[in-house]
């Protein structure tokens, strides 16, 4: 929504600043790694393609990782922002709705059950296959989203119903994952634990392309519906009186937000707190208006995850930490801070 000029200008300046910081951070993210590359070498590899080895490192490994950080950060943050709005709950996020737990269970199930079956059927290539694990995580994430929206429709889609359904689903899938861990052998247990840490090291050009295909239409759909989403802030009855089909908008928003989160979890595992804290920080920085909050969340989420990944790669180099550990260490205290300083500041 357009605001009085001065406030709007401040919001635009902050968005521009986020974009500039993001672009500035991409260069060191491409340069840093086990092979030290200069900015000139990276530019040559990207533009001229002189050195096949450098080109392979940049285009095959580092660029997918950077793009994965940008898209995963944006996807999780947008999901969080939208879910907080549609269920009118500041603690709302794809994780609160149980999607993360469901996707995690899907991954664990694929690791343990498919692993057993593949070994018995002499199909070793299917055991611990990242595609099967990702597909299973995605499938259960999707089932969770459909289940939640089904319950919500049946019970009238109230915010309380959605959160309660999310808590129940998280508990259920959490227990099921624990059971799988208990039943699994050492190798499977290690694989499950590895999946539980969100890790951008799994990024490949292919899964980055798939993520882009899911994220871009979702982002466009959300941006096209920012004004409708804004009306939900006034409450369901007022939104309905403004001509909004509240339940339909809420259902569609939850499904689309859940889907882009499920794609992220399926490819990179559980990256905690991004979807919860980034929308809050964005609202504190930029103020209100769903269009500004969604755009800001996408930029800030991308910036946050890229910076976290940079930290994960350099903190105890040459060991690369899973980015999920960094986001949890940064996110948990920040979320506590937000809880105690809830009142947003004006831009």
């Amino acid at each position, binding site marked *: *929504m*357009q*605001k*009085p000029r001065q*406030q709007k200008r401040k919001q635009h300046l902050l968005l521009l600043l986020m974009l500039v910081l993001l672009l500035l951070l991409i260069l060191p993210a491409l340069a840093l790694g086990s092979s030290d590359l200069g900015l000139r070498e990276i530019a040559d590899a990207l533009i001229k393609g002189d050195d096949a080895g450098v080109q392979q490192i940049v285009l095959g490994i580092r660029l997918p990782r950077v793009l994965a950080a940008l898209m995963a950060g944006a996807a999780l943050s947008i999901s969080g922002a939208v879910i*907080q*709005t549609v269920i*009118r*709950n*500041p603690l709302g996020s794809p994780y609160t709705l149980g999607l993360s737990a469901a996707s995690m269970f899907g991954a664990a199930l694929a690791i343990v059950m498919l692993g057993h079956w593949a070994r018995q059927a002499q199909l070793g290539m299917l055991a611990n296959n990242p595609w099967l694990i990702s597909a299973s995580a995605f499938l259960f994430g999707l089932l969770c989203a459909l289940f939640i929206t089904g319950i919500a429709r049946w019970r009238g889609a109230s915010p309380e119903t959605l959160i309660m359904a999310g808590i129940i689903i998280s508990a259920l899938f959490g227990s099921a994952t624990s059971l799988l861990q208990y039943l699994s052998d050492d190798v499977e247990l290690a694989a499950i634990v590895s999946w539980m840490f969100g890790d951008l090291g799994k990024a490949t050009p292919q899964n980055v392309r798939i993520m882009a295909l899911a994220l871009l239409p979702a982002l466009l759909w959300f941006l*096209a519906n*920012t*004004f*409708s989403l*804004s*009306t939900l*802030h*006034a*409450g369901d*009855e*007022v939104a*309905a*009186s*403004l*001509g*909004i*089909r509240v339940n339909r908008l809420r259902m569609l928003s939850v499904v689309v937000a859940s889907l882009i989160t499920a794609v992220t979890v399926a490819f990179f595992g559980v990256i905690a707190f991004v979807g919860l804290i980034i929308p809050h920080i964005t*609202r504190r920085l930029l*103020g*209100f*208006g769903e*269009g500004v909050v969604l755009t800001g969340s996408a930029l800030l989420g991308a910036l946050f995850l890229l910076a976290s990944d940079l930290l994960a790669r350099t903190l105890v180099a040459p060991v690369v930490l899973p980015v999920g550990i960094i986001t949890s260490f940064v996110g948990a205290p920040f979320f506590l801070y937000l809880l105690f300083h809830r*009142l*947003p500041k*004006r831009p």
Partner: protein
Amino acid sequence: MSAITFQNLSFGYRRHHKVLRQLNGEVPAQKLTAILGPNGCGKSTLVKCLMRLHQPQQGEIKLMDRALGDYAHKELARTLAYVAQSSQAIFPMDVYSTVMLGRKPHVSWRPGRADHQKVRAAIADMGLTDKMLTLLEELSGGEQQRVQVARALAQEPAVLLLDEPTANLDLKYQKEVMQLLRRVVEQGITVAAVLHDVNLALRYADHFILMKQGEILAQGGPAVLTEKNLALLYETPLTCLTKDGNTWFQAWGTG
């Protein structure tokens, strides 16, 4: 002429428990209608049925001589505006953003220049220009109600329905809100409000709907506000007092 009419209107949240029972009534055009009655008599439920927020199980509602069900969502929102009893935003919003929501029925994607002008006009009309960028939670109760009315007026409706607009307000703000609603009526808009204070209704409203246990006890002009009707309505004796040409009802000291 009636802005809204309803006939044989029945509604219940549960199948065998009717909150509204076979109601027949009207909201006269370009007048201020007060819907009065004790707690739980179905006043708010009636307003929500008139807003199409609830689907009646029986009966017919007509808005501007057209069946309410025939209106498309946006068309209805351009005709009928609603101010809820409480509208607590989860994330803080300022006055301008809140009033801008009222333009939604007229906008498909994002508001244009004309929408911004109408929002500014609605804010100015409510005397809130200097608080355009103030957070709602920083405003007084009366100012917050003015913002909600400004949001509803930004919808450019023909009819405005309000659910207890004076609830939780002190005397000064109750008076302020009712004076505001009178100004809205003078602009040619039909207003119907659920009210609890009989004297406030008597002072500012033109038409009265008295509800008890899901039924309409009486409706019409100020003449329906009699000691007998009000005693029946609230199950307590009331005395009608007159001084210097002003009339009011008193429940205290009458037994």
